[in-house]
């Protein structure tokens, strides 16, 4: 994460996308959450050497991004930001696993490279699915959907509170971090002592703020629960959406779409 402010802007942008008004945005969040979960489980359940079977799964995020009119480039950058971790862990594979697995003409490809590519593709798939879900739905709606799917109330409350105060506090933290950066020259002053006292002060301010907020909430009649917003409806469109994507994902899970297509074409040629 480059800087606090950058991260904060990012957070806001992703949430603003959820304010769009396409048929996908209007779907009940539960349908989207469930479809994404089916998708992710299908993707990660592949064996480690399956690569070509993973490619057709891109249809899910790509269609949602296109139909939801989300900025594809921006989401792709965010996916790319997460990639280094998967690459760091997967890059060992080509060195430890040298068994030849594929022959493309004179070129032999070892199992390690295949599994490495498979890890990277999987990361891209799951991360883009999660980001697309957030951008289409918004965090608050996801929380409400999860409550209606059985998440405990106190945890949901905690999530909603966290989300409300996140921006306030992250701004405060960002200001403190920038102040420290401006006052220290090079490495000097960015050491441990100033870091600890910076965090301590941030914590103190946070705490005082919490007390003030709590008083204010009590004064306005807070009874320990947020009033529920209007309840969405799990109608025919939601059922169709969920059924379509689950069926597609599960079908693609058991039948390698890319290879089927390939044999169809190569068979036709020969």
């Amino acid at each position, binding site marked *: 994460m480059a800087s606090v402010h950058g991260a904060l802007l990012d957070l806001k942008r992703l949430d603003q996308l959820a304010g769009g008004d396409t048929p996908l945005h209007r779907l009940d969040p539960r349908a989207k959450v469930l479809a994404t979960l089916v998708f*992710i*489980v299908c993707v*990660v*359940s592949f064996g*480690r050497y399956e*690569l*070509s079977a993973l*490619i*057709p799964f891109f249809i899910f995020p*790509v*269609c949602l991004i*296109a*139909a939801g009119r989300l900025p594809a480039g921006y989401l792709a950058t*965010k*996916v790319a930001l997460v990639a280094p971790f*998967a690459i760091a862990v*997967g890059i*060992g*594979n080509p060195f*430890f*696993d040298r*068994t030849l697995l594929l022959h*493309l003409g004179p070129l032999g490809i070892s199992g*390690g490279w295949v*599994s490495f590519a498979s*890890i990277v593709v999987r*990361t891209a798939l*799951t991360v883009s699915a*999660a*980001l697309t*879900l957030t951008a289409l739905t918004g965090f608050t709606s996801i929380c409400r959907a999860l409550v209606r799917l059985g*998440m*405990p109330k*106190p*945890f949901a409350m*905690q*999530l909603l*509170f*966290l989300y409300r105060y*996140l921006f306030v*506090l992250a701004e405060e*933290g960002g200001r*403190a971090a920038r102040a420290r950066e401006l006052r220290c020259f090079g490495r000097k002053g960015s*050491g*441990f002592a100033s*870091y*600890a006292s*910076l965090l*301590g002060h941030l914590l103190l301010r*946070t705490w005082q703020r919490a007390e003030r*907020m*709590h008083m204010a909430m009590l004064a306005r009649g807070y009874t320990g629960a947020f009033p529920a917003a209007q309840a969405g409806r799990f109608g025919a469109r939601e059922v169709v959406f969920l059924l379509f994507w689950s069926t597609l994902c599960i079908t693609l899970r058991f*039948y*390698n779409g*890319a*290879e089927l*297509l*390939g*044999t169809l074409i*190569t068979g036709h040629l020969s």
Partner: protein
Amino acid sequence: MHMADALLSPTVGATMWAVSAGGVAICSARLCRRRDDRLAPLMGVLGGFLFAAQMINFSIPGTGSSGHLTGGLLLAILLGPSAAFLTVASVLMVQAFFFADGGLLALGCNIFNLGMIPALLVYPLCYRRLIGPAPGRRREVAVTMFSALLAMQLGALCVVLETAASGVCALPLGKFLLLMQPIHLAIGLVEGAVTLAVVSFLRKARPELLVRGSAPAGAPGRLVLAGFLVCALLVAGALSRFASVQPDGLEWSVAKVAGGASLPQQRGGLPALLGALQRKTAWFPDYQPAPAAAPGTATAPVMAASEGRPVSGKGSGVAGVVGTAVTVLLVAGAALLLRRGSRAAVPPEV
């Protein structure tokens, strides 16, 4: 220490989801019983604090690298274990949705590694036992450092175990351990020092704040939780062995040749379902039926037998590449069409 979806098998992911969900449910129920209205907003802002604190990096002197606070132990000291666990879990959830740190399937693992271990395991079983009612300065330093180190080491160990159990990554277990543990030794030292510094800062500035967390929780609840954790770990261990062996399919095909199923089939519920799904991977990989496993197959490299498909078949490889290319084109085409279609469907702006 955030894990990624791509490194996990669904069995491990689902098991850890179940463990973490159980933790969330138990802690939520405990908080409900406590009926402390002030706690909810406080947890919310502290979650925000943790989020902000994790974005501010500190430089580790001498190494030129930097790290940041994870905060599980700090929050447990300030809030008590249940509230701290829920707070850390909520922060991880926001990170999963917005920054894709980890991912949705890995969320269970991350909540366990970064939340459950420091807040529900190390804090009640180690920190609170050792620190005593009125600790001296030296004792506090020693206990805090030790707890932070322990939490970090256990977390890193769990990352390694979960990755190894999933069997997606080919890193040998020993080498991965040698890579992970020392790094997290350093990070754990800094984490302990930061926790200690913040707690002593608070003790000087607002001593009354530190009273809240030290309120003793009911011992039976703790016991139940500990028992639950042990069970969960056992289940995870057993299931993960199951998961790491299964995708190979080697034993499965051997068993099929021998004509006897050596695997117990009486597992129920989600794990069984996912296990069945994985077993499908092993012997019904694609549209092709698995080739009859000759006795010689058993001696072939694991990978050759793993997918049960003709691995050296030129045709299959070429078909895969061609199919991939065509699929990419199709997907791109679908995206273009959808985008154009939806643009046409948008009414002109008024």
